[in-house]
């Protein structure tokens, strides 16, 4: 410990600078209402919350902010419900034949490029009438969220002593009752982790929203893109929107990890 201290301090500060400086610039862009022109080019002349006010007062952007969180929460709930039973049979080892296959099955979306999926989804969605609809976007966001939720719930089920289920069966509990009464209470931290990761995935999703939902449905990510060079270069608005996207999720994750003691794994 002693010998490594100096190297440790240097490494920790370098990495903290490397990671937080870009995020600091993001926040600075969102707060600077006026920059010095030539000298002191690096400093804002005036700071304020002007851009945040503007963001909330533009109806179209405000709707996108609201939409982002509604979609993300719906995605989290939907993907958890979708994966509960599959994770149960895999996690508790009920499926023995082809276990590797089924375990991998839930991770397939990770290997499918979002843009290629979007190309394939366009005709499917237009045939089903799902283009530019809320549920269409929720389903599209859900695809990429499955791997995180599936893995977390599978681990959750695997961590629970199978004897509990046996005991419940002895007392006459069946199928869904077992999941509801025996597993769900013990699964809480895993459910929270799965939910937050699905939420994080949804607010991160951009291509599919743009291809299948825009202009009827726009999210913060879409608005960041438009202000960050997609349509025009407005770093103050892109900065404010990015900050609104990043800071709440980092706080949410921090609180969740602090109070449940779990560690979210995105890789």
């Amino acid at each position, binding site marked *: 410990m002693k010998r*490594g201290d100096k190297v*440790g*301090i240097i*490494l*920790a500060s370098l*990495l*903290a600078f490397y*990671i*937080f400086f*870009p*995020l600091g*610039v*993001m926040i600075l862009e969102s707060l600077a209402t006026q920059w010095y022109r030539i000298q002191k*080019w*690096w400093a804002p002349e005036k700071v304020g919350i002007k851009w945040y006010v503007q963001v909330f007062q533009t109806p179209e952007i405000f709707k996108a902010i609201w939409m982002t969180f509604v979609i993300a929460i719906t995605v989290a709930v939907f993907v958890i419900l*979708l*994966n509960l*039973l*599959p994770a*149960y*049979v*895999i996690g508790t080892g009920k499926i*023995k034949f082809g276990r590797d296959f089924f*375990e*991998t*099955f*839930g991770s*397939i979306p990770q*290997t*499918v*490029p979002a*843009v*290629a*999926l*979007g*190309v*394939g*989804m366009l*005709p*499917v969605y237009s045939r089903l009438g799902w283009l530019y609809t809320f549920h269409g976007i929720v*389903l599209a966001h*859900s*695809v990429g969220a499955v791997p995180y939720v599936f893995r977390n719930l599978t681990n959750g089920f695997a961590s629970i002593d199978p004897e509990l289920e046996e005991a419940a069966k002895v007392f006459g509990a069946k199928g869904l009752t077992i999941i509801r009464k025996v597993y769900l209470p013990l699964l809480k931290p895993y459910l929270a982790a799965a939910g937050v990761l699905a939420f994080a995935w949804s*607010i*991160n999703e*951009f291509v599919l929203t743009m*291809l299948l939902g825009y202009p009827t449905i726009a999210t913060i*990510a879409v608005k*960041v*893109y438009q202000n*960050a*060079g*997609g349509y025009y270069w407005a*770093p103050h608005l*892109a*900065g404010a929107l*990015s900050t609104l*996207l990043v800071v709440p999720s*980092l706080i949410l994750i921090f609180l969740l990890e602090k109070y449940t003691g779990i560690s979210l794994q995105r*890789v």
Partner: protein
Amino acid sequence: MSMDERLKNFLYFSPLLIFFAVVLFWPLFNVFYTSSKEFGLANALALFKPDKYAWKSLIFTIRVAFVSTLLSAFFGYSIALILVMRKSYENVIIQVLRVPLFVPYIVIGFIWRALLAPKGYVTMILNILLTKLGFEPINFMGKGISINIAHIWLYIPMIFIISYAALVKINPEIIEAARSLGASGWVIIKKIYLPLTWRALITGTSIVFLAAFVGVSIPLILGSEPTYFPVYIYYILNQEFDIAKASAMSMVFVAISMFLGYIYFTLSIRLRRGGYQ
């Protein structure tokens, strides 16, 4: 296990099967169908002749993704090694390095564009230094290197986390034994750490390469010439509305990424079974 039970287990799995069938397999099938029926295989292959833009874009993309992966693997693994060997400020460093993983890709693209633009902090500071030293000022925008810089901010942490998880599982007694026999740091890395964690490192690099290769958001915001391959597909779809051509290009894309995904999954299953070593 009875037939009945097997059927029940299969039924339990069915929500996911149905969901994937509608929003994953059907669209993917569509990509293959459209590209072979409407576009034609010969036309699809013709897109990837060496003088065609699609080919240039694909090669450029593979090169950029490869450089990003290599740099991330080097730095990510080195940081993990230093941490395991020094054991100081581990918790701080781990927490700091996890932050980029929760920043949306589109935001990462925006932040680095703000930093690398001609008036951005990184470019300005670098150019002040360069002109003082008598060099030509540089411009990052529109070049692969700006994508690399944004990529590694996200992927160094990814590689770090995967390699660190494997490195801490190594029994410290092995290291102690090697030390007491007089092995130096380098020898320990070469003879113990690397041989015991190469699988984790390969898993990490394959997932990072895959992510760098297929990700749209970061190169879309930073822009490049030639256009990044997934961005090129996106433009064909969103600006030229040519779904047949986009499908043909996606097919090649899906084939490559699924192959990489296959490598990743085979390795990661082995990692899980073998306790990360």
